[in-house]
């Protein structure tokens, strides 16, 4: 059994620039097969000599061979990883954490709500749902971001939209007059999505404030709190529930999350000290 504290060596395969400061990297194990993962889980990526950071998996769980991570340059470690080129080495621990409820959602409508880079951790769940499209009712993706140039996975969303069995609404916080799409925050799209709230599972990922507003908007249209799932983020260190850095009330985000059911966390979500 692999020691969860020991990073395994991976080589950077293909690198794709998504946005000005966002890169998607394929990571190939130096030896053997990469472990399986579930949508919503994360790996600890180790930039040698710099540090380790938790990054959600953003690729297709069914596609073997490599891990796919979408990384934004926001700090020393994530910046070092985002700047890695094909052939570079890094360490990987994982996968860790809880998964999006794609299995239990079968038979229901599924609403994905993503904000900014939050589309990346949802993408494996979207792949999985679309791969078994017949098991679900309506599938809706609501995506919001800062402005039109910051739309993540734009070509992929255009491809999903062409399938005609996925409803996709996109909005941006602000735009210039050349933009003909929606402007406004992503919770605003919920009322327009037109799903049946009593037969829907919602999966929400984005900045925590955006998720709070979104969960509130989902409950306002009648979605029960136990059918809403959020992907939480805290300062993950050990990733196996030992060190306590990511404590969130009675839970550790690394092992009890990152995907958490809203009814379990609604009372502490807005508590500043937590």
């Amino acid at each position, binding site marked *: 059994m692999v020691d969860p504290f020991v990073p395994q060596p991976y080589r950077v395969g293909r690198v794709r620039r998504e946005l000005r*400061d966002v890169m998607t990297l394929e990571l190939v194990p130096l030896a053997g097969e990469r472990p399986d993962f579930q949508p919503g889980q994360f790996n600890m990526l180790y930039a040698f000599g710099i540090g380790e950071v938790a990054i959600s998996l953003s690729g297709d769980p069914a596609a073997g061979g490599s891990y796919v991570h979408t990384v*934004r340059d*926001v700090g020393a470690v994530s910046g070092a990883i985002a700047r890695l080129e094909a052939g570079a080495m890094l360490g990987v621990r994982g996968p860790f954490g809880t998964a999006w409820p794609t299995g239990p959602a079968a038979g229901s409508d599924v609403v994905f709500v993503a*904000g*900014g*880079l939050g589309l990346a951790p949802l993408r494996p769940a979207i792949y999985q749902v679309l791969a078994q499209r017949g098991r679900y009712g309506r599938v809706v993706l609501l995506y*919001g*971001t*800062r402005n039109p140039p*910051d739309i993540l996975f734009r070509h992929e969303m255009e491809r999903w939209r062409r399938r005609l069995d996925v409803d996709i609404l996109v909005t941006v*916080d*602000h*735009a*210039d*007059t050349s*933009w*003909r*799409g*929606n*402007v*406004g*925050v992503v*919770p*605003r799209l919920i009322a*327009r999505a037109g799903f049946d709230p009593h037969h829907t599972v919602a999966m929400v990922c*984005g*900045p*925590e*404030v*955006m998720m709070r*507003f979104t969960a509130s908007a989902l409950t306002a249209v009648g979605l029960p709190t136990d059918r809403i799932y959020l992907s939480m*983020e805290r300062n993950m260190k050990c990733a196996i529930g030992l060190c306590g850095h990511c404590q969130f009330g009675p839970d550790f985000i690394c092992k009890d999350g990152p995907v958490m059911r809203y009814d379990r966390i609604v009372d502490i979500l807005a508590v500043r000290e937590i």
Partner: protein
Amino acid sequence: MEGLERIVLAHPFFAGLEAELGEVISGCARNHRFEPGHYLGHEGEPANEFFLIRHGKVALEITPPGQPEIVFATESEGGIVGASWLIPPYRWRFDARAVELTRAIGIDAKCLRDKCEADHNLGYAMMKRFLPVLMQQLDETRLQILDVYGKHGK
């Protein structure tokens, strides 16, 4: 006018409104059609009407000095545009431009204000409908100014 009254009452903003009040409000209403690029209102101009959007899309814009226009919201079918008619000095606080062909019902502001003054039940009914919209816009504005998707937004 009966047709207009039906359209007004069918608009989500007036969902569940008593038919009597709907008839009173419809007395201040008229149909509009805005071609793409046409303006429903300009910042600083008298807010003589507010609009119930039936079809199309309207961009709400502000123009910072020396810079291009910034679209900070869009309204589409089922939305309303304009609340400045409620509050003195009754002037538009932004530009409202039709992004695509837009059909709307315009409610004459002075007509409705006078009716609200004369019948406080109507005034209260209008306030109960506008306040949630204004609160929602306030929430949305808070979320926008937090710039949660910015590099340091989290």
